[in-house]
Each structure stands twice: as structure tokens, then as C-alpha cells.
């Protein structure tokens, strides 16, 4: 059933956390796909489930979290039910991961070179000397000056931006087809953030890798991504091409999210605000999870849960559009 054009397919993914007080549903019916060479942005407020989606794809859900149903396919092959050892080989070889904090994703006791060489020899089966040459090449590609000397330094000898470059070099070491980048620029200053984003875009284009970019920063999404998925309370609220979603948001939540960002090119006395906050997992309201905060709420939203439906150009999980399409008919 996999279409030939998509590299990653996520189908009806459902992630649960069993607790003593009952099972928490963290992700519910999440479906999307990414084409080769495409950058998909995933946005939402903290707790919306965006990082969790990334963790499920790379097979690193923290226990007791587990995939309850649904499937994840990479290149048409299911990867969500693989044994640990097989998944470990896919991770790094076919899927690269970049995390928010570059200091915690590098081992402080090993030199940068040793960590790169380890990854390269594990996944590409090169000899030690060749692997080291490749490691230096990778560091040069990611814009680290004097890579030949810096390869023998430890992570603490690098600045934050340089460390994130090393992490990107590590993620790219085995030429993966898919890169899952979870808030790669959030810990960095704006000027460094711009450098890292353009680096990420360049290397992905050169290697033809698909990217899933998880971030809460709409600006980063607008500049980087081809398509964007907006998440709310563990579900997809809207998916569509970046320009469509930003300029003509179909879901009231997306509209609220866009309006609450202070804009650089217009003056407003007050920002648009979404009152209230996202519900906790154990208190998600019936119907549409956004209904208590939604300015356009009507009766149906409170009882029946909307699924993603086609709206011009994008797909949104909102009954507003169902009404419109029915009226048109």
C-alpha cells in the first residue's frame, strides 16, 4: 500500500503511556509521509507530541511509552516492530538524529574524532585510516575550520554552535536517507541559528536526504520547510505546504499560533492571544481537543472528533471545513 514517492510513511500512529492511574494517550491517529529530499516541519506547543513522534520514528521511545497501534514504514519497509538490534543498525545508517542540546548528545569523555570514526566504521565498514579521512571531510563539510586539528579535541573545547555542527556531522556520517532533527537550533543564539539552519538545508540538498524538523519556531519552519504539520494535544491539526499554512491557515489553532507571533513588519498594539492552555493528557476534552480555546467553536466540535479533511491546498482537522464543503454540495 506504500506509494512509491514517499520515503517515510507514518500510518495511524498511536503511542500510549500506561500508568498506574490508567493509560495516557500521547499520540493518536498520526499519519503523514515525507518524500525523498523533502523537509517536513512539525510545530506545536510543548506537550503537543512533536518530539514524541520523532522518538517513535527513530525507535527511541522512553519506557513505559509504547506504540500501541499503527505503523511506520521507511522505504516501504516496516520499522516500528523491528527487534532492538536491527533497529540499532537502521538508526545511524538510514536514519540520522539531531537533538536539541548538542552537549548531551556527544560523549564528553571521547574526542569528537573518535565518536565520528566509531559511527563511520560501524555503519560503513571502512578501515580506521579511511574512516578518519571521512570524518575530517565531514567536519569540513559542516563548516568547522581547521578540521584536521579539531578532530582530536573533546566536545567541551567546542562552542555551542560548533558542537551542533559536530552533531550534524555525526548524523550525516553514514549518508542516511532520513534525518530527524528535534529542535536543532533552540539552544543556540539567533546568529548561530541562522548558520545552522542554512547548513542543514545545504547538506540535505546535497545528500538528497529527507528531513523531519521538529521545532516550536514558526520562523525556522517558514524558512526551511517544504511542508508543515501542526500538532495539538497528540493529534495533527493541519498538514500542508508551508506557504498555504502560513498565509491561509485552515485550522483556528494554526491561525491563533500565527497571530500570537510578534511580527517584524506590522505594528499591533496587542498580539492575538489564544486564551487558556493546552489540555493535559489526562484531561483532553471530548470532541475536538481544541474546542475550549477555539473562537469559532460550535456544537458539533464539543461532541464529535474531527479527522483531517481536505481543504483547499491543505488538510485540516476542523469541522468548519466540513460544514463548508457540505454547503457547497
Amino acid at each position, binding site marked *: 500500500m506504500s506509494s512509491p514517492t514517499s520515503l517515510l510513511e507514518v500510518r495511524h500512529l498511536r503511542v500510549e503511556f500506561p500508568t498506574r492511574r490508567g493509560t495516557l494517550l500521547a499520540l493518536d491517529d498520526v499519519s503523514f509521509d515525507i518524500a525523498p529530499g523533502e523537509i517536513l516541519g512539525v510545530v506545536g506547543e510543548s506537550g503537543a507530541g512533536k518530539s514524541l513522534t520523532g522518538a517513535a520514528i527513530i525507535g527511541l521511545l522512553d519506557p513505559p511509552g509504547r506504540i500501541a497501534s499503527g505503523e511506520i514504514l521507511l522505504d516501504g519497509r516496516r520499522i516500528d516492530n523491528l527487534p532492538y538490534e536491527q533497529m540499532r543498525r537502521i538508526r545511524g545508517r538510514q536514519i540520522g538524529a539531531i537533538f536539541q542540546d548538542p552537549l548531551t548528545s556527544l560523549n564528553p569523555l571521547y574526542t569528537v574524532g573518535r565518536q565520528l570514526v566509531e559511527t563511520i566504521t560501524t555503519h560503513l565498514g571502512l578501515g580506521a585510516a579511511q574512516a578518519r579521512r571521512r570524518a575530517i571531510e565531514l567536519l569540513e563539510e559542516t563548516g568547522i575550520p581547521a578540521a584536521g586539528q579539531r578532530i582530536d579535541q573533546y566536545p567541551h573545547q567546542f562552542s555551542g554552535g560548533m558542537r551542533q555542527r559536530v552533531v550534524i556531522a555525526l548524523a550525516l556520517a553514514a549518508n542516511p536517507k532520513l534525518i530527524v532533527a528535534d529542535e536543532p537550533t533552540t539552544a543556540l*543564539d*539567533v546568529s548561530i541559528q541562522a548558520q545552522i539552519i542554512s547548513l542543514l538545508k545545504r547538506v540535505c540538498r546535497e545528500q538528497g536526504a529527507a528531513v523531519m524538523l521538529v521545532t516550536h519556531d514558526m520562523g525556522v519552519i*517558514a524558512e526551511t520547510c517544504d511542508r508543515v504539520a501542526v500538532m495539538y494535544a497528540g493529534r495533527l491539526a493541519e498538514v500542508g505546504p508551508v506557504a498555504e499554512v502560513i498565509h491561509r491557515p485552515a485550522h483556528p489553532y494554526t491561525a491563533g499560533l500565527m497571530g500570537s507571533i*510578534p511580527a517584524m513588519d506590522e505594528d499591533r498594539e496587542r498580539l492575538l492571544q489564544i486564551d487558556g492552555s493546552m489540555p493535559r493528557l489526562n484531561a483532553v476534552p471530548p470532541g475536538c481537543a481544541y474546542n475550549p480555546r477555539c473562537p469559532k467553536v460550535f456544537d458539533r466540535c464539543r461532541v464529535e472528533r474531527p479527522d483531517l479533511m481536505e481543504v483547499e491546498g491543505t488538510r485540516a482537522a476542523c469541522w468548519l471545513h466540513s460544514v463548508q464543503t457540505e454547503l457547497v454540495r
Partner: protein
Amino acid sequence: MSNTPLVEVRDLSKTFDVSLPWLNRVLERKGRLFVHAVDGVSFAIERGTTLALVGESGCGKSTVARLLVGLYEPTRGSVSFDGTDAALTLASRDGLALRRRMQMIFQDPYASLNPRWKVQEIVAEPLREHGLVSGAGELRERVGELLRSVGLAASDGEKFPHQFSGGQRQRISIARALATQPEFLVCDEPTSALDVSVQAQVLNLMKDLQRQRGLSYLFISHNLAVVRHVADRVGVMYLGRLVELAPKAELFARPRHPYTRMLLDAIPDIHMSGRSRTPVQGEVPNPLQPPSGCSFHPRCPHANERCKAERPLLRMDGPGVQVACHAVEEGRI
């Protein structure tokens, strides 16, 4: 009301001693080591207005905030509040009265509220400390009033901080800061730990309070878009120094200092998808060994020999605009 600015900062400097312990210095033959976290910063904040300080991490903006409320003692320079020297007053018997007039809101609403106290006690502490209420009934009433003024319910006083979301906690911090009816609030990155939708709530609340109570703010942030929304004047800091100080409209329409231009250029713009921005080269240098002359010269596209040797001073460049740059002064850019 007098015409003097509410807060006036002159040549404010703070040096931290980061030397190794004495024994290490002797054995490893190393000298003392100092970081000039804030170096000769001067500005003024008019009543009822907001001055924002922006800059990247390590530029000294939080140190300025702490110096202003007296959490640090300045190494050099002075802060005058309503015409009197703040450092002297804080040390004297009138210190308490001055503290009542300026309060601070911290960045992390998870770390700045005592998790073992009920919200009622947290907000009541400044009222009790300053002896502003008499009797438990009045205290309860005042706390309820404060909580309502920041959009919470009076009954929320019975809860503990962990029962609130990040945005609500920041409202509690604001209620606590407002308890003493201050004139001046120092806000150190008040929204950077919050989600955008919650950030909008807090920024709107801060603006409403400013209008209602005539508050003056020093607003510290690294987010230029937020600064553009809240500030009247903006100061840009780099490695402990102010490099540009200008009215908001002027700074965003015509940034003068190359560093300000760089910061503005680095902001991702949500309305221009696909635009490729020119990434800035290089990173903030180590503050232990700041570059000679203008500390921005290693990253500056307009740097010449003079920039490497001579440190530029803030000078007027247009109405209300001050900028510290040789290239601007010489008309090279």
C-alpha cells in the same frame, strides 16, 4: 512629577573575578583573570516607557538587570533611581522603601517560585515583608486582588506552583512583583521559557498593566521580534558594551551598527518563506580575551585598521540615536 528620567544609569560596569584558586595560580604560574561582564553602560528610562536590552548569550544583559535591582554591586558607575543614587540608598535605612519601588521578574517561572509554598504565601510575602497590610483578612483580600489583576482567580491562592502551567506561573511571578505597587519592573527574559501562544498572553498582560499603572520596564530579551512589540527604546549589547541605543522605530527601520544589522538579518521571517538569508560568519568571542579595539571587528564586514586598534565610543547619530562604530562615524556604511 519631575522631568528627570525614572532610572538613569551612568558608566555602569561589573567585573567578575574568575581567577583560579591561589594555590593553582602559584603552581601553574597563572595570573588573575577577570571578566568584564558589563563595561561602561549608560542609559536612561523615562517614566511609563520600556527600554529593551537585546543581545546574544553572554553579552551582559542579565548582569545589567541584576545590577539595577541591587542583586550585584557595580564595580564602577552608578544607577540613579528617581534622582537618588540607588546603591547608596539600598545600603542605607531607606533601602526598604526603594526596594518597594522596583521589582524583578525572572526568566524561569519554574525556578523562581518556591515549590513548597502556596501561591497565597508567595504573593503575600512582599506585602508582609514591607509591612503593607495589617491583619490576615486584608492580606487575603489584597492577594486575591493581585491574582485577579493578572488574570488568575482569587481561589488559585490555595494551590501550589506545580498545579499551574508555565504561563500561569509567570502570571504568579508578575502578581508577586506587583504586590508592592512598584513603579519600575526589571524583566529578565520573562517569556523566553514560554510557548508562543502563552508568550502572547503574558506580553499582552504586561502591556495592559503598563497602561493601567504607568509602569516603567527594563525588558531583557534575545528575541528582536518580541522587543519590537514591547519596547519604546532599544539598546543592543555586545560583549558587555552598548553598541547602539535608539528609539524602536528608528532601530528597526534604519539599524546603524553592523551588529544590529546582523541581528535583524538573522531573524527568521515567517512571511517570506524560502528567502535565503545571509548567515553571519563567526561566533561571539570568548569574553575572557575580548578582541582589541571594537570587540565586534573579527565578525564585521566593514572592519579596518582603526577598528582593530581603537575602541569606538557611543556617539549621537540622529535624533535620540547613539551608536558606537567607527564605520558609521566616518560614513563608510
